[in-house]
């Protein structure tokens, strides 16, 4: 399968996302000003500080030319994974519900957290088990997941909350310990933790690979089959 990793001015985790995707498939970089997704099977919107995160994190990047193609790709059911700043971009674009607000501590946080897999029947966590714990790092200032209460109820009952911070591990004040959510259709997923930084034993954990392996398995079974 072929992944595409978007590169905005100010992206900084594009290379790690590229390396992580390369462990499970082929990868190409997608330049923000291009309008060609190069036939990829899944798009990764990586972490960083796209367009300087001016105004609000992700607010400008969502209008990048490549994002029009990503939105069209998502509408057609293509898999889109947003990590950290990518999550913020997808929320700003309306591809994912909710918004990311400044951490309650107002501090930049950078540490390993433990996540709990809440749903494991979709394309992004299909290789995991429900209740499985994943050790993956977070590093952000604006990661407090917010949505109005009634929307949170709907997300939970519809199985759109895929990952939660384990009890005591919520680093940013995210409502209901939400670490990652998908859209209603299940083909767009965003999370604040960085699975691409947890792919090698040298980095302390390989749990992040589970996300990339899930995507590959889904694409091989449902798209390329």
């Amino acid at each position, binding site marked *: 399968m072929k992944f595409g990793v978007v590169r905005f001015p100010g992206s900084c985790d594009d290379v790690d996302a590229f390396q992580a995707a390369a462990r499970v498939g082929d990868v190409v970089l997608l330049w923000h000003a291009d309008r060609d997704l190069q036939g990829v099977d899944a798009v990764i919107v990586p972490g960083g500080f796209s367009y300087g995160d001016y105004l609000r994190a992700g607010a400008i990047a969502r209008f990048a030319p490549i994002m029009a193609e990503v939105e069209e790709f998502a509408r057609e059911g293509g898999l889109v994974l947003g990590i950290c700043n990518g999550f913020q971009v997808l929320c700003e674009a309306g591809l994912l519900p909710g918004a990311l*607000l400044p951490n309650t501590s*107002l501090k930049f946080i950078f540490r390993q957290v433990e996540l709990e897999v809440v749903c494991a029947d979709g394309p992004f966590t299909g290789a995991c088990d429900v209740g499985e714990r994943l050790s993956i790092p977070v590093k952000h200032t604006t990661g407090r997941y917010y949505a109005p209460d009634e929307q949170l109820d709907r997300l939970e009952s519809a199985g759109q909350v895929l990952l939660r911070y384990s009890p005591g591990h919520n680093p940013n004040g995210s409502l209901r310990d939400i670490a990652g959510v998908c859209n209603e259709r299940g083909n767009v997923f965003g999370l604040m933790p960085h699975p691409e930084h947890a792919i090698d034993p040298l980095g302390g954990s390989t749990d992040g690979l589970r996300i990339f392996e899930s995507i590959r398995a889904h694409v091989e079974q449902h798209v390329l089959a």
Partner: protein
Amino acid sequence: MRARVLVRPKAGILDPQGQAVERALPALGFEGVRNVHVGRLIELDVDDPDKLPEMCERLLTNPLIEDYEIVGSPGGDSIGRSAGAELPGENAR
């Protein structure tokens, strides 16, 4: 026309920045300060002020988490605001 867009965190959403400022003021001896909220000011010259609400909804604010108020200048009269936004001074919460 010169306009100002005042952007405020929506009522009910935790505003740790406002809380930090509220805690800092008494530490400097300024007592009697409550309900501090920190927002953003965007100033711009605009040919067609009627377009300002759409600019606010599409880019300048995130309507899920922020309210806006558009103020014309000179004069400083409020000429528009997001649905449900409170007047300044009303936003004790």
